[in-house]
């Protein structure tokens, strides 16, 4: 029996839920996204027997998936909340595939949601300052997440002669794409100067180099590939998946310029029997502008140090040969890596409206968690490979 996940499952339902300052509870947001995904797939709750969620600070309970299943009215045969930070959305699709292949369930509802804006910045800062940096060897020095990523950006700029303009160009590109996305939160056009003039958070990262921090909710429904054509909308097949993990704390990262994405990308491509040249669209985790440059290189779309040139050439704009972050990404549309997954599906289905890319057969989605600590790469396709 072939244990590979290639062609094993497909995403047949997508829900993109409330965004912004919603005033909702975390559970309520999860439920909204779930309702939307079920409706998109033409299903009801009774049709779902698998549940996956993202372990996140906004829901501190020990068993978030049990809490949500109770809230929403599910009694799943497979249930868990996975914990890879921002890399979890891609991982949920692969874990859904494993559970379905193992016969533990038939249809998995996978959700990512957060009410961080409603809970407020002080709550976020207070919790995150306890749980992100190393409690003894980092936190006493008063770091914060943008500063930890800034350490990466600073070293990257030093080693590859990149500039703050190179970082800003990523933010500008995402904002251009967001203008065509109905649900995007930030659509006002910006230029490189606007990014550089925005408040400095932790050098070299300005406010506009950092992703949004809104409430959000998104969900997908995964079923076996053989079942995938029984639904209203075209399926998005899982072609490949890989992970790469090198550290938790940035102080222990083996490198500040190249990360586990090298391995996650290689493993995903190997599973799919594809290479970077086969990718039509890439949704790259953009918690900060620097991560996009690093991911473009480490995933093999260009050589190390050449991502800024790739962006500058227009190759990754919507008119280029490798459009990235087609909905505007976390930098301009909405935070939450799950939206990179849903956007990939929308593009593969031909449902992306004004932002539809013509050539949309293979889409790569990359997620990163922690401080470039955990990496997951997912390849989705309009057809099986």
């Amino acid at each position, binding site marked *: 029996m072939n244990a590979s996940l290639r062609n094993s499952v497909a995403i047949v339902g997508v829900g993109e839920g409330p965004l912004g300052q919603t005033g909702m509870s975390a559970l309520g947001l999860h439920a909204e996204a779930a309702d939307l995904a079920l409706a998109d797939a033409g299903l009801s709750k009774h049709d779902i027997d698998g549940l996956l969620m993202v372990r996140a600070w906004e829901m501190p309970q020990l068993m978030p998936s049990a809490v949500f299943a109770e809230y929403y009215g599910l009694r799943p045969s497979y249930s868990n909340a996975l914990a890879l930070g921002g890399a979890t959305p891609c991982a949920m699709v692969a874990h859904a595939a494993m559970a379905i292949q193992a016969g533990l369930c038939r249809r998995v509802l996978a959700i990512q949601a957060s009410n961080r804006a409603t809970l407020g910045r002080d709550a976020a*800062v207070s919790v995150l300052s306890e749980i992100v940096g190393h409690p003894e060897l980092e936190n*006493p020095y008063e770091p914060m997440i943008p*500063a930890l990523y800034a350490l990466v950006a600073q*070293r990257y700029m030093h080693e590859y002669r990149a500039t703050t303009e190179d970082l800003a160009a990523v933010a500008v590109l995402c904002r251009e794409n967001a203008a065509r996305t109905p649900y995007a939160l930030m659509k006002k056009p910006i230029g490189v100067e606007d990014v550089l003039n925005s408040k400095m958070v932790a050098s070299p990262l300005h406010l506009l180099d950092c992703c949004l921090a809104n409430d959000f909710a998104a969900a997908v429904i995964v079923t076996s590939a053989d079942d995938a054509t029984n639904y209203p909308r075209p399926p998005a097949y899982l072609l490949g998946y890989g992970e790469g993990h090198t550290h938790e704390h940035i102080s222990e990262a083996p490198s500040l310029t190249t990360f586990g994405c090298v391995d996650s990308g290689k493993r995903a491509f190997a599973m799919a029997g594809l290479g970077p040249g086969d990718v039509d669209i890439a949704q790259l985790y953009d918690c900060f502008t620097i991560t996009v440059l690093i991911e473009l290189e480490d995933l093999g779309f260009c050589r190390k140090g050449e991502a800024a040139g790739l962006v500058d050439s227009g190759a990754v704009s919507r008119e280029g040969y490798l459009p990235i972050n087609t909905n505007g990404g976390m930098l301009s549309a909405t935070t939450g890596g799950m939206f990179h997954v849903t956007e990939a599906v929308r593009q593969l289905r031909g449902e992306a409206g004004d932002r539809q890319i013509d050539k949309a057969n293979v889409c790569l989605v990359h997620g990163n968690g922690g401080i470039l600590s955990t990496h997951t790469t997912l390849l989705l396709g309009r057809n099986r490979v």
Partner: protein
Amino acid sequence: MAEADIERFAAPETREYWRAAAEGRLLVQKCQDCGAVQFFSWVSCIECSSSRLGWIEASGRGKVYSFTVIHRAPKPELRDKVPYVLALVQLDEGVRMMSNIVECDPQAVHIDMPVRVIFEPGSVGVVLPKFRPV
């Protein structure tokens, strides 16, 4: 800093490190089997997996490997501290550690800047190794 404070703050694996910091000494771990040096107090050598790890005193000298000037206070109580410098320092012994660069204009900090360790009380009641320009 009292032993009770160290026990409250530090895991058993790192208490030796914090006792030394309170005495103005910077310790790193050295494998007694292969000689590799590491900073985080692991329970085994990251090179050879031996569990025979000891502590050695570092020279206290190093270079800035990366840094950032923090402008936006992460917590309200840090509002009068910004801007301050968070850095990764590469010690001469070959390991990297996080710290602050102090006694220096933040704008003067640069990668490869030579630094040496000093010890300052931190806000959490421990003595912290920090670095100043040489």
